[in-house]
């Protein structure tokens, strides 16, 4: 009775262990599941399973007005709602040919870059958690994120579910003193990043855990549709803020950090460096922030209709290319509404990255992809 092996497969030659990681697992970043086949602790097969959070956002959006989808976009990638807002507003503006006033463009850039800061900071905490550090990095990251969320609350009324962008601008103007408070945070962020770098980057355990883990050739990454920091860590110079400029990014001076190998360590470092570039953009945007309308005076709120046509519009979200594909048949609701979520497409190559590595590496690779299940499952 005692000799019964609990988990090994029947025959001798096929002694593989099938483990279902998730949907309730400490580090699958939500309700995400990986069907892993292990040989010892080496991954032989890995199939991601998701859809636990599927609510058919696209179907809902096709049934309601254009404006009513805006709060739903907050809930896609709930770590960075303002980027989602912008992506959607931009798509509708391109679909309907709506102008955006200068000040609103600046506000959008500021908010999007703050969101990028939030996302990458939280990412650092999450990946350290995945590596088994006992939450310290996560708490430091969340301490700083908190300060930016306070700003969001003052501006939009909500810490995360902002619902702030409108077709033709933003919902309301900056409160008095808001821009100054952003500059305080921007100034404080450098020292915080220094501290985090000291905490993480030289750490031998982190280095040995993340270097040469999960790397793929850049051609394969590109072919797999990987975008965002993941792709740039492998050395592909493709940042939509430069490659396919939207908003007013052409006015700012910033650089795109590029990695070499594209392993988990590069992915961490690229995000560090990107945050520093974001701080640069924020400084410039705050200095140049003009007075004026925060929303186009002729922007329509109620009964908004877009002319017949279609558009695919994308922005450089913190996690990658966030696209919206809209088809209008002239009614008040879109005929087809499609979100191209970066998290979802970036998962395509998860198995390829993990094969032959340890179970412990799988967790880090998944963490380095930086998924949010609200976006993967929609």
């Amino acid at each position, binding site marked *: 009775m005692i000799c019964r092996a609990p988990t090994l497969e029947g025959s001798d030659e096929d002694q593989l262990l099938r483990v279902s990681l998730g949907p309730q697992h400490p580090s699958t970043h939500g309700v995400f599941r990986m069907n892993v086949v292990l040989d010892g602790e080496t991954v032989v097969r890995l199939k991601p399973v998701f859809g636990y959070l599927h609510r058919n956002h696209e179907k809902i959006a096709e049934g309601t007005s254009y404006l009513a989808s805006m709060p739903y976009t907050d809930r896609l990638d709930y770590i960075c709602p303002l980027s989602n807002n912008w992506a959607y507003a931009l798509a509708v503006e*391109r679909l309907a040919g709506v102008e955006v006033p200068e000040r609103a463009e600046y506000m959008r850039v500021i908010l999007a870059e703050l969101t990028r800061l939030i996302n990458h900071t939280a990412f650092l905490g999450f990946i350290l958690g995945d590596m088994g550090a006992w939450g310290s990095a996560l708490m430091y990251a969340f301490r700083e994120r908190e300060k930016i969320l306070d700003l969001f609350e003052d501006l939009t009324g909500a810490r995360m579910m902002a619902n702030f962008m409108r077709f033709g601008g933003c919902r309301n103007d900056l409160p008095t003193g808001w821009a100054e408070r952003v500059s305080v945070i921007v100034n404080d962020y450098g020292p915080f990043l220094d501290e985090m770098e000291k905490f993480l980057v030289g750490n031998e355990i982190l280095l040995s855990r993340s270097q040469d883990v999960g790397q793929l050739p850049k051609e394969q990454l590109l072919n*797999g549709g990987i975008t965002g920091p993941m792709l740039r860590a492998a050395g592909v110079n493709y940042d939509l803020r430069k490659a396919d400029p939207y908003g007013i990014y052409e006015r700012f001076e910033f650089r795109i950090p590029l990695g070499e190998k594209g392993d988990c360590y590069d992915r961490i470092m690229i995000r560090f460096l990107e945050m520093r570039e974001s701080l640069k953009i924020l400084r410039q945007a705050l200095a140049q922030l003009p007075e004026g309308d925060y929303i186009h005076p002729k922007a329509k709120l109620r009964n908004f209709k877009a002319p017949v046509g279609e558009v695919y519009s994308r922005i450089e979200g913190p996690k990658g290319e966030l696209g919206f594909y809209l088809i209008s048949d002239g009614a008040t609701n879109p005929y087809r509404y499609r979100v191209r979520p970066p998290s979802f497409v970036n998962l*395509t190559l998860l198995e390829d990255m993990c094969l032959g590595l340890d179970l412990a590496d799988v967790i880090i690779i998944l963490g380095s992809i930086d998924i949010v299940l609200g976006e993967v499952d929609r």
Partner: protein
Amino acid sequence: MNADPESILGLLRGALPGVHISLRKNPGPSAQHSLLIEASGLVEASRFLRDHQEFDLLSNVTGIDWPDPTKADKVAPTEDEGAIAPEVGFLEVVYHLFSTTRRVGPLVLRCRTKDRREDVRIPSLVSVYRSAEFQEREIYDLFGVTFTGHPDLRRILMWDEYVDHPMRKDYVAPDDYEYEPTPHDAVLEKAKVHYPAPS
């Protein structure tokens, strides 16, 4: 920078003489015109675009349900005389290609099934662009397009036992919601059918 579909149309017609390709004009302000490619030539066309036109990133793949074919031609009308307007509703798959090196895009490709019920096959692009893998599974799941040649065509967002395709326009939502006394809405009416006497 939008791709120039007209010149690419010429190149494609030259490279793939047997395949029927037509240009679809986008009447909206975005002016993203698209190329409608016959299903049989889709894989060759995309391989040509990847290898010879540097369209190395297939960013977005999505399905559209057109139960009313005239509506499809309203959104993407054609100037090509030879294009035949379909008589029955159909499913359409739209591909957005980008070039990271030349930095152009999107190049919009469309591909249509014969109808919405019987012949819903479209060749899979996974062999050319790996990024299509999950997105095609999603279209299969939500729209019911069958991608021939897909290595692992399973449902992805809905569960495996599910039968319908929720993103189709004629999809009827189920009525077995958990009962909740919502005072308004059709939800309550639907729930009443399922739960005749809620306590």
